[in-house]
């Protein structure tokens, strides 16, 4: 039996150094990434859906497509792919953790404010980076898309950062629903939005009404930016960036208000 020193300093308060504070953020982000990378129920659908769609429609069924198709579909399915980690990783996990008591415990513990959300954000960015990298490899090495390194890097950057508005949207959804019903609700937002933004069927072949309301959906704007990154854009990048930033700010503001009020 080794003697364990359980004595505590009476009345001496040790201050939190900046280094330890940083470590708290790093540990939180690391734990958040690890737990999802070890969860096949989350990771596999997130990685497989966009890749399988791309392989099916961009490669196997791509004979009749135009020469631009591999790049066009890279933008669509890339956008579809990076929406998921934000919406599900943020939204569903927040909804479950508000229900399971984990968020309550974290609020009681001296976790630095923001570490929880920053941790989830790092996780969403990391998974979005993996999705974007897989699709880029498929497009360049399998579908033979003509993408110079600068365009590939631009696409990667757009898609990874483009997961942020959807993280904000997931955050908001996670504060609106609670518990086991969350995956269903998130899918009800995710799938129709992907369709209405022209990620599955190109917008020009959709009914004019659906085309006209497409700019209402954040996914539409990210898709435009991704198309522009791969060289198929039709301008207006600054507007799309501004719209996405606006969506992000509004979602975060409403979510923060709800979290403060209801926890």
């Amino acid at each position, binding site marked *: 039996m080794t003697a364990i*020193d359980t004595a505590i300093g009476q009345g001496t308060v040790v201050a939190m150094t900046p280094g330890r504070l940083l470590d708290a953020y790093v540990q939180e982000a690391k734990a958040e990434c690890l737990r999802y990378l070890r969860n096949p129920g989350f990771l596999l659908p997130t990685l497989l859906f966009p890749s399988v769609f791309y392989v099916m429609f961009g490669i196997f069924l791509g004979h009749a497509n135009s020469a631009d198709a591999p790049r066009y579909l890279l933008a669509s399915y890339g956008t579809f792919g990076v929406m998921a980690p934000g919406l599900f990783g943020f939204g569903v996990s927040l909804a479950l953790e508000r229900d399971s008591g984990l968020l309550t415990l974290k609020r009681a513990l*001296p976790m630095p404010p923001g570490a929880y959300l920053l941790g989830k954000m790092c996780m969403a960015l990391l998974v979005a980076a993996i999705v974007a990298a897989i699709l880029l490899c498929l497009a360049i090495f399998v579908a033979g898309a003509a993408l110079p390194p600068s365009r590939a890097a631009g696409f990667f950057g757009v898609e990874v950062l483009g997961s942020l508005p959807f993280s904000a949207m997931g955050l908001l959804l996670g504060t609106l629903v609670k518990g086991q019903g969350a995956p269903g609700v998130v899918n009800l937002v995710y799938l129709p939005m992907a369709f209405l933004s022209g990620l599955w069927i190109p917008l020009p072949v959709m009914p004019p009404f659906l085309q006209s309301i497409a700019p209402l959906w954040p996914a539409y704007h990210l898709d435009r930016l991704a198309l522009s990154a791969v060289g198929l854009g039709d301008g207006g990048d600054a507007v799309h960036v501004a719209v996405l930033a606006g969506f992000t700010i509004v979602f975060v503001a409403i979510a923060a208000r709800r979290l403060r009020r209801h926890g």
Partner: protein
Amino acid sequence: MNNDTRIARLEHVGKRYGTVVALDGIDLDIHRGELLALLGPNGAGKSTCIGLLLGLHRADSGTATLFGEDPQDIGPRRRIGVMLQAANLPATLKVGELLRLTASYYPDPRPLAECASLAGVADLLGRRYGALSGGQQRRVQFAMAMAGRPEILFLDEPTVGMDITARQSLWAAIRQLVAGGCAVVLTTHYLEEAEALADRVCVIAKGKVVSEGSVDALRARVALRRIRCLTSLDPGIVAGWPDVASVEARQDRLAIATTQAEVVVRRLLHADPSLSELEVQRAGLAEAFTEIARGADAAQEAA
């Protein structure tokens, strides 16, 4: 330094959820280094008290303070440890990772190996949390609670789901922490847990403290002892004797409550030489607790 040893306080705190009054102007002080047990029926307000001291809720009226500060600020919470009743930790994280994460929130954490050995989870560090039994998960949560070298530890029903050996080893670990100067606030349904650990017991019913004191004082508050016997004596006559608080009769069996058991027993034996199956019992903490809760009910109904 002042001599005020109160490190966590609720002062006239009121809290309601919709129309339900959870706390009704409660006062509660926790002193440095003491072990306080909060007892009370479900819905009495125990968890709300803890939630307020942890900064999870805001009081509707009155103030909750931790080390003289607002528990919703992070500063005072860096000096506490927490184990909540229902917390599903991430199943895919390993025990060592959970401990390292919790320790990272604190300025001067306890070394991981020390936490693990105090809580008896040293052999589980490489296992995933989701693969552990319920009792093992509670021990991991306890290890996390002391990761920050807390000056005060909040344990909400810590031994639920533990077998008797695990419970006793957790009690030993809690005693070790208290001996080192850590204060503990414990809510529990197990009265023997409060009896085994607590310096002070606080009974809460309907959002108020109805009794506060040492375990012995609490028991003494219900100084009654119960006499049970088989006798042909008329319950009505026995109830009229001095010092007899109450009599319950079922066929020939009498249950007499009294503060003067010796006097009453002597008189019983004298009055009925054929009396049999005599039993005298002191009220345990369980009975004291029921008695106090019932008294609080009666007082409230009378008011």
